[in-house]
């Protein structure tokens, strides 16, 4: 195969696949415009959601947007220690002789990244939500209700906090994979240098984690993007009510679960479809931004190591 022909063969698919993102953006923007024109900034700032049949209702995405951000932040905060501890455990604590166990552990976590999210959702709705609702939330409310985040009396396990916990479980494998890869890339000389200084294992791990810091940040951002966009699992546990997520023990909404819930009948309501699409546009922007930032940090770590 000649060079020119080979180029000709691979160029069109490459162009098409990169054009899809641009097209997606343009289409979402096109369908969002009527909503943006009608509601302006209110689309982002208004907490009201009053669908009206036959006339433009009042639609504001403030509550679902806040829900998306709150649940994704909770997810990253909870997933980070889980992922880092797993990296340390598999890379440093498991004895060298047990490398089979380590590979088994690693592939189990890798399998978790590929599971269909509905599996997490069903488990979350059937097991996690009732479990947390009956135990942790009652305790949080009875002992820590002076903290505003835990001040509301929990009624069920379907809350914004459950969504955050479930998302944390879902993104831990991603963060783990990103951090592990760069942790393994830390040059041997650095490791030996650290050990030769007579560090304790804790000090050693701290130094190594310091070197993997850009990867940790990248993992956090990519995990955040994934958590913000997750739909079906969240819709099953978040409670799906327009309630400001100022207290974590109450049900709330996220943008993607709102779209999942309302899309099927959105045609009945003038402009609702456009509002939902603009919610999708915001998700796309959040996803792009967090991924670009994440990849930028990752590049940095690759060049360092």
């Amino acid at each position, binding site marked *: 195969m000649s060079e020119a022909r080979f180029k000709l063969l691979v160029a069109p698919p490459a162009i098409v696949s990169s054009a899809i993102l641009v097209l997606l953006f343009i289409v979402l923007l096109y369908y969002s415009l009527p909503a943006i024109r009608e509601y302006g900034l209110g689309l982002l700032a208004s907490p009201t959601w009053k669908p009206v049949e036959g006339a433009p209702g009042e639609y504001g995405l403030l509550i679902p947007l806040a829900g998306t951000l709150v649940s994704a932040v909770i997810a990253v905060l909870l997933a980070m220690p889980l992922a880092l501890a797993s990296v340390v455990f598999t890379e440093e604590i498991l004895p060298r002789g047990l490398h089979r166990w380590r590979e088994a552990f690693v592939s189990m976590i890798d399998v978790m990244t590929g599971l269909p999210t509905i599996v997490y959702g069903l488990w979350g709705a059937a097991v996690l939500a009732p479990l947390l609702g009956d135990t942790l939330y009652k305790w949080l409310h009875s002992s820590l209700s002076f903290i505003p985040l835990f001040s509301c009396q929990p*009624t069920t396990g*379907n809350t914004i906090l459950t969504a955050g916990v479930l998302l944390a479980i879902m993104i831990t494998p991603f963060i783990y994979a990103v951090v592990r890869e760069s942790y393994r890339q830390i040059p041997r000389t650095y490791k030996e240098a650290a050990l030769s200084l007579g560090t304790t294992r804790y000090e050693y791990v701290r130094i190594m984690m310091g070197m993997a810091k850009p990867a940790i940040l990248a993992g956090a951002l990519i995990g955040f993007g994934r958590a913000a966009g997750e739909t079906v699992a969240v819709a099953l546990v978040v409670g*799906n009510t327009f309630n400001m997520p100022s*207290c974590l023990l109450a*049900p709330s909404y996220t943008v993607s679960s709102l779209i999942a819930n*309302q899309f*099927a*009948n959105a*045609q009945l309501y003038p402009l609702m479809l456009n509002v939902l699409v603009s919610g999708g546009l915001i998700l796309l922007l959040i996803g792009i931004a967090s991924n670009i930032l994440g990849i930028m940090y990752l590049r940095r770590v690759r060049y360092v190591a």
Partner: protein
Amino acid sequence: MVLKRLAALLLLVAASMALLSYAGQRWRPEAPDSIVLHGEGSSFLYPQVQAWSEEVRSTYPWLVVNYNPTGSGAGQSAFIKRVVDFAGSDPPLTGEAWERLRGKVVQLPVVIGMVAVVYNVPGVDGLRLNAEVLALIYRGEIEYWDDDAIARLNPTANLPHERIIVVHRSDSSGTTQVFTLYLHKAAPSLWPQELVGKSPDWPVDYTGRGIGGKGNQGVTELVKRNPYSIGYVEYAYAVKEGLSIALLENREGEYVAPSPEAAQEAARNALGSLPDSPDGDWSRGFDSVIYAPGRGSYPLTTWSFLLFYKEYPGPEAEAVRAFIGWINTEGQKRVVEGYVPIPEELRSLNLKAVEMIGVAGG
């Protein structure tokens, strides 16, 4: 070299596709000149239309009915754009949409459905509720199960002092429309018109005790899993999942449990407010079946519609006539569990539509 190979490959693909499509025409599993009707819409109607589409073939082996449960809204919009042969919808066309299509469409109520108010309170059976109490619960103003308003209706029940978990649909739904319309009709001062709809702004959500589930399945799961909850689902789900069903006060002041007889009673009592022809405007009278008068009628009763055009381009007209005729005769004997057949009077009304359908330009 590569180009030649590519060309050969493309040729092969093209040839096999041509062969396959030819074969497809020759050996279609259906009879040689079967007619396909495409429909979409109400997910509530889906199990019923699905069952009918299979059973109708024992009478008309050439009739193939495909139905896609995209939701009533999507079904209506596809119908108005004429991209389907028929649509299923829980509400009929709005007055405005009907006016635009006036004389071109027929709308047939084909099955009766019921919405059950379900609850999960251990040790309480046969809970009696009326629209005022339900409205106050869904407004968030009744907080505990042993509230005086509930206790007054259930003097013998052992009501616990537990907070009520109020479950509603999170997606927009005809079930919600029926439920809220009942509240509005029976307790207008507590449940104003603006809270009626497929996706109202639930006042109880602002108390943090409201919770939304997606679809009947979602609400069913939430009620089952959370003690001291209350919700509303299609009757079929309540029965299938063995949920406790509340008795509701009807217009005559009786407390009635959902049953096929109670639903048919409501339908019979609503007949007077219906248009006298399938091509009439159904948008006004159709909801008279909700909170209908008459002894023994169940207030949360509703029906679902199939929408057809009056003119079809060719053989579809014959297929539609056959389908409508069959649904309103044989089909009513094969109503899936959870739905209720329409009363005799409605069947003969629907059958008038058969005469109205013809070939475009013919």
